[in-house]
């Protein structure tokens, strides 16, 4: 599997994604420059976390116009896997690759470990997990409150596009377990075709027991299954 990681000006989690893929998964990864038009034959494209263009306007609002995003959209349109993490999720929403929007957290910037529950396993990023599996990993964002109209939310639920929800230690999606005020505790979603996935928590920061959690590994291992399928 070859993973292309897009480097926007202001990205700052691209190295973490690189290490997760190369060091922990033992797969090939390349950095893709935002001004280029070439995905270098990547099977999977990761839009990493950070503050693309400073996020001064609205998170991800400018990065979607980067030259490389045209190729990313084409890749997604052909069924290629695209994974947006944190700022990458925001960019994917701004680019229309994913439904919904990510608004300012109700309680400001939050950096802390959260627990998310896997809701569906029929995507490239969750296939190795089990439904209801709870994963602990960090969040670190100021604009991660997932929002959409009630109609869209219902449709996402009906079509099994809500992939992750914030839950408490007992696996319940409670108000207290919701770190940013996301509607219906939504932490991550996929598109209708199930090949574009976005989430606010950082699975790439949870792949090594030395750092406290390796719960993110199962998600990256899912990619491997999908790419070799």
């Amino acid at each position: 599997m070859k993973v292309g990681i897009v480097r926007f000006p202001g990205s700052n989690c691209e190295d973490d994604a690189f290490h997760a893929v190369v060091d922990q998964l033992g797969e090939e990864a390349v950095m893709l420059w935002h001004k280029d038009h070439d995905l270098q034959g990547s099977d999977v494209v990761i839009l990493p976390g950070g503050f693309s263009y400073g996020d001064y306007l609205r998170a991800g609002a400018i990065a979607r116009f980067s030259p490389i995003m045209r190729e990313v959209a084409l890749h997604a349109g052909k069924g290629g896997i695209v994974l947006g993490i944190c700022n990458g999720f925001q960019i994917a929403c701004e680019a229309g690759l994913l439904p919904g929007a990510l608004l300012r957290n109700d309680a400001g910037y939050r950096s802390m470990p959260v627990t998310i529950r896997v809701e569906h396993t029929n995507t490239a990023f969750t296939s190795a997990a089990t439904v209801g599996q709870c994963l602990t990993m960090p969040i670190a964002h100021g604009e991660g409150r997932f929002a959409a109209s009630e109609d869209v939310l219902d449709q996402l639920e009906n079509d099994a596009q809500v992939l992750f929800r914030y839950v408490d230690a007992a696996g319940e999606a409670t108000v207290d377990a919701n770190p940013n005020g996301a509607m219906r505790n939504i932490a991550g979603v996929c598109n209708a075709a199930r090949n574009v996935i976005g989430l606010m928590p950082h699975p790439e920061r949870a792949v090594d027991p030395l750092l406290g959690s390796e719960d993110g590994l199962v998600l990256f291992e899912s990619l491997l299954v999908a790419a070799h399928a």
Partner: protein
Amino acid sequence: MTPTPRPGDPTITPALVAEHGLTRDEYDRLVNMLGRTPTFTELGIVSALWSEHCSYKHSRPLLRKLPTSAPYVLQGPGENAGVISIGDGLAVAFKIESHNHPSAVEPYQGAATGVGGILRDVFTMGARPIAMLNSLRFGSLDSPRVRYLVAGVVRGIGDYGNCMGVPTVAGDVMFDAAYEGNPLVNAMCVGILREEELIRAKAQGIGNAIMAVGARTGRDGIHGASFASEDLSHNSDAKRPRVQVGDPFTEKLLLEATLELIASGHVVAVQDMGAAGLTSSSAEMAERGDVGVTIDTLKVPVRESGMTPYEILLSESQERMLVVAIKGREDKVREILAKWDLTAAVIGEVIAEPVYRVTEGDRVVAEFPGTRLVTDCPQYHPDARESDAIIALRARDVHAVPPLPQERNSAWTLRRLLESPTIASKRWLYRQYDSTVRTNTVIGPGSGDAAVLRIRGTKKGLALKTDCNGRYVYLDPRVGGRIAVAEAARNVACVGARPMAITNCLNFGNPTRPDIFFQFREALAGMAEACVALGTPVTGGNVSLYNESPAGAVYPTPTIGMVGLLEDVSRATAMEFREPEDAIILLGEPTDELGASEYLAWIHGVVAGAPPACDLTRERALVETLHESINAGLVHSAHDCSEGGFAVAIAECCIGNPLALHGAMVDLSAWKAIPSRALLFGEAQGRAIVSTSDAAAVLAIAKRRGVPARNIGTVKPPNEGLVIVVAGHSMRSPLMDLVAAYHDAIPRAMQRAPAEQVTVDLATGAPA
């Protein structure tokens, strides 16, 4: 060439000289150096370079007494940052710096640009920043103005560091009325580099090009360095325009571009344009290289039209660098900057003629002989005399302070202490800081005595911590200076590291007052003693004087930023207990000391008595005991006893992580001679609480190292709570009581934070 005044320049008058902060003597010195009256531009340059902030004119002679060398020190004081070797061809660059005055008047931007400045200091050395720390001091959280400052400073630190993608991993925060009008905001940055990539800010190579890279120069922050070199007054709010505005996105681009530039080999020197901007960076680079420089202000990329040379030279616009490019490679430099959407412009040249010359096109507007602008800066040796009032405070018999009626129940006292914002969990602050980005954070904020980061590609780890109890330094500067270093060393030892080196940020009041200069001299002497005893040289830092508001000077606060090295990062040890039935061992001895304690200050409102004694031989033995037993794999948790004493320390071992609570049962009856409040809440130095499944082995190491040690009890399941037996009395605290006190205190106080700015007259404290 003799400079000519520009049309429109004001005439040099005694009033104008005074406005620039130069004394009569300093002005005479300048005239002597030049052999003529300075131009307005020259006066501006000198006012910045000879400000306390840039020149260290009151502190330099004493700073020379600090130990600065060790075989592994690659770069000591005098550069943008200190650098030590950690083996495997790797080195660590680190430095701490203050942004106190800007943060006092504009907390958000003041703190943010403080973070930006210290980041630049580290990446100009060729190092990639891997961690940020901050050391903060505020007044009481009961004050709305203080809550406004806390909220703004924390948001400023978070927004800048988070955007840069550099984790904020540790620090220390204290609250005391002494900091009410003048908060302290000290930021530390740690970076990592390959030894061969180390680059210095030394101009060299006649004919090489001097280039300004990064952001354009605007009118912001003019005279920031001089602002930092005067007492805060009720006029300070009017100086808000002297506070710079930060742009972390541009800084992130500048970081990537600078590291790429250094790796390319096209540049021979890099210097941050920080305090006093272009003036300071160019003059210091020339002085270090002992060469001449010439700069044309018309070639400096500017943000607004009509800027005078004076303004361009003194602007403190952020996110700018000065680099010396090898002649002929200027276009290569421009190319790299362009990749990151940044500009680079040739603004001058390294010249053989021993002169510092500034032109505006063909007109020479400033010219100083050789490097005398830097080397001829005045130095002062002010009088030092301890204040009688402090001598009296220290002599006060604090054992005579009567206990409150509620104190009959020591569990009440413990709960109260856990609510002190100085002691309470700082989670409200650090959850606003990304502490996990870059995926190296093994121990982050809140769970260890120091942060631990792994060094990728090796088995090693770095332990990082800032420390200083200003109250100790206030009541006895010599002892307080010693303790600041010793506590920082103890903290990195508690996570399993060997203390390596320190950077320091010396926050003091007005040095021309003999009582303040006494504090400065003695605190430095105490620090130097501890640095020698503990083998931790000083590799650099920052001096921040004039930390005074009309209410008086802050506590003298020489903040220590410590770097320690773990040979095996998998040994990194947190402070919380881990396994029920582990033995709990107290390393070190309690004493009958209460002076200068948080107990007296928080429970009784008394700041008096002598701070606890600090025996440096014992501190070193404790550090070695911790290091050896942790690296032998014997220790499950380690936590030093500091503010709040033994009782607070063991409570933190039980409840530090509210999601993994542990009970404990300990017996202190062995120390019958010590009154229970000193035993529980006294702050005797040289102590740590460790838990282990092999008590005999830990006790044996302690004995061999000459550290008193005793098995005092056992880790218990959480439902048994914390039980401490003292003098036949059993003090019992349910964990949920302790959790509520410790974890809710700061969020509860900050809920009262006003949404908008609170302005007060700093002279009276009254709303303005």
